[in-house]
């Protein structure tokens, strides 16, 4: 035990007198003692070897302390800030709903505030879940992609409801659902490239024409472009694909044209 305490005191250069540092040192000591017992259970009886083996495992205590502080902060956030934040958000949403409804008397429309609040909470939870899934094995990443699509659909559904209720004309309403699909595809693409998913390039080739085609329908339905004159927008997607192919070829050219220096 004393060997481990000496080791901790000698190697933990970042030691300050804070309570956190004390707790960290105590945690390390417990872990070292536990590991020593574990190794002894494996059949090792030489106390000096056990001590050296364990000390070698716990050699970088400064880096460990940095990680410990981050972990502690994260757990504090999850334990206190998250529930308090959610409760505060719910109260604020309800307050906004009642105040707005009371002042305007538009009870038939203000329920959108509640829907928006619920959707925002769901999206927030999904984002936390997506972040967690991204830190896990790649096999879980498709689930994160599905959740991201659900988030974008929720946003577009809210936009649809908002426009449907708040805007007097029906003109811009239903194409917002198409906008949701565009947002979902774009979001998935950003996720795929951001997390370096396999087959992301293939996704890009399929998504770009789909996005521009939906954009064309959306704009034409809104009257922003004519049905007859707006179709070149679809070609933009294909042109982007083509440009991306050229970019891939150019950036890989040095590898395809590489000539080996023959070793004799």
């Amino acid at each position, binding site marked *: 035990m004393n060997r481990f305490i000496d080791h901790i005191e000698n190697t933990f250069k970042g030691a300050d007198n804070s309570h956190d540092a004390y707790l960290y040192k105590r945690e390390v000591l417990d872990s070292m003692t536990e590991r020593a017992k574990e190794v002894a259970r494996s059949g*090792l009886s030489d106390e000096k070897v056990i001590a050296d083996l364990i000390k070698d495992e716990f050699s970088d205590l400064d880096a460990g302390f940095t990680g410990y502080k981050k972990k502690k902060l994260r757990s504090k956030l999850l334990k206190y800030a998250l529930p308090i934040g959610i409760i505060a958000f719910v109260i604020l949403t309800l307050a906004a709903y009642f105040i707005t409804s009371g002042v305007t008397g538009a009870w038939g429309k203000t329920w959108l505030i509640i829907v928006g609040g619920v959707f925002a909470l769901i999206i927030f939870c999904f984002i936390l879940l997506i972040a967690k899934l991204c830190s896990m094995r790649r*096999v879980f990443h498709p689930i994160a992609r599905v959740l991201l699509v659900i988030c974008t659909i929720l946003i577009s559904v809210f936009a649809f409801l908002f426009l449907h209720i708040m805007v007097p004309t029906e003109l811009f309403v239903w194409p917002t659902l198409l906008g949701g699909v565009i947002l979902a595809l774009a979001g998935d693409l950003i996720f795929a490239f951001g997390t370096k998913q396999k087959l992301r390039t293939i996704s890009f080739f399929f998504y770009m024409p789909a996005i521009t085609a939906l954009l064309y329908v959306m704009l034409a339905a809104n009257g922003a472009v004519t049905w007859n004159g707006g179709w070149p927008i679809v070609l933009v997607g294909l042109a982007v694909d083509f440009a991306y192919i050229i970019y891939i070829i150019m950036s890989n050219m040095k590898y395809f044209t590489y000539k080996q220096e023959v070793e004799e």
Partner: protein
Amino acid sequence: MMNRRLDAELWDKMHYLFRDFNDRMVHVELNYDFIPDIEALRTVLICAFEKVPVLHSRFVDKKLWTHWEVMPYNIDDVFTVSHPDNVEDAVEEFLTQYIAPTEDIQMKVALFIKDGKSTLCMVENHMCMDGGDLKLFLQELCENYSRYVSEGISPVSFRTGSRSYADVYSGFSKTEAGVARRLFKNINERDNHRFPLTEDNIRDRSFIARKKFSEETLDKLKVKGKELGATINELLLASYFYSVYELAGYPESDKVMISNAIDLRRHMDSVNDKGFTNHTSWMQCAIPERGKDIFETVKYVVESSNRFKKDRFMGLYGLPLLNFGYSFMPHAVSEEIIKIGYSNPLMAMSNIGILNGQHYALCGKEPADAFMSGAVKYKPFVLLTATTYKKVITLSMCVRGNDEDKEIVKRFFELMEKNINTITG
């Protein structure tokens, strides 16, 4: 409490896939003229296991993904000491055992003692490390033992670090690494020529057949190699080709292929900061016909092997494709798809190379004899392993077969001897 997990690396998964072709055990035998300090050996082994946790882990196949789960162990399950009457039989029985990847330990060690001499044997799951790294592991084990016994230094100096297949690119420039990472092409061809073993049978048992060639033979091979412009490995390979033509009775005009194991560490800048793992691939050596005599066979082998040697990326073809296959699909699906494209060589050779006695010396005392061999292959696959210790070449073949197969392998070694003698004149 949840056990610690380790990632299953590309080669771990590949060797797991090889379960249909071999038992994945790598074998080591070191014969000493003395009895080492058993308690010290236990201590060093525990330290080695603690430093290389994959050795006390079980492989978990969840179908969607795979990983290693580090398990508690007791050294008595790893290391056994016995005093058998017949050491040879005890060694054979120990070395031909099978450790399932689902077991809690992936390496077993035994010390057989008789008449003041000892034989240290080791079997290890190939999924954890290949012959190249096992040689280094043994070296570190022996060095740690010596320092511990003679100087009292704790035996904790074992290599640790990454086990990733991608470390093979560490010795390349950025452009070269870029090229190597794009070698998706599988350059290995299928060859249906088989080593003439009997059909599979439920009563088949694993055995290790060995044949030693004297120091004099090695010296002669060196001289003849210089004359013919061939390496010792190429001369052995040529003899392998010629012998198998004779043994199996292939038509002389047939093109035959034998895959040769190559150590991919040649591409790495250093292995000192890397963990113990696999870095071995195949180089397919093909000869267009048997040749009118063994010397023509040697010429064909040298030509074939030179084509590969000139390739900066020797052995790296197909690796990115394997990595791609394993990285985005569920494990079970990846396996099935890789099985379609992968053809395990029916005949192969692995030259583990020179075993340096000083590396395996315990407190300065070198082993009297040392031997290593690859996995026990399941019929119709065969692997000829070559090791050289104190200028004595040992050829071995580990087969799961019957007495008839033993005779066939024995006959093969006789033909090898005859052909090597023809080469050396």
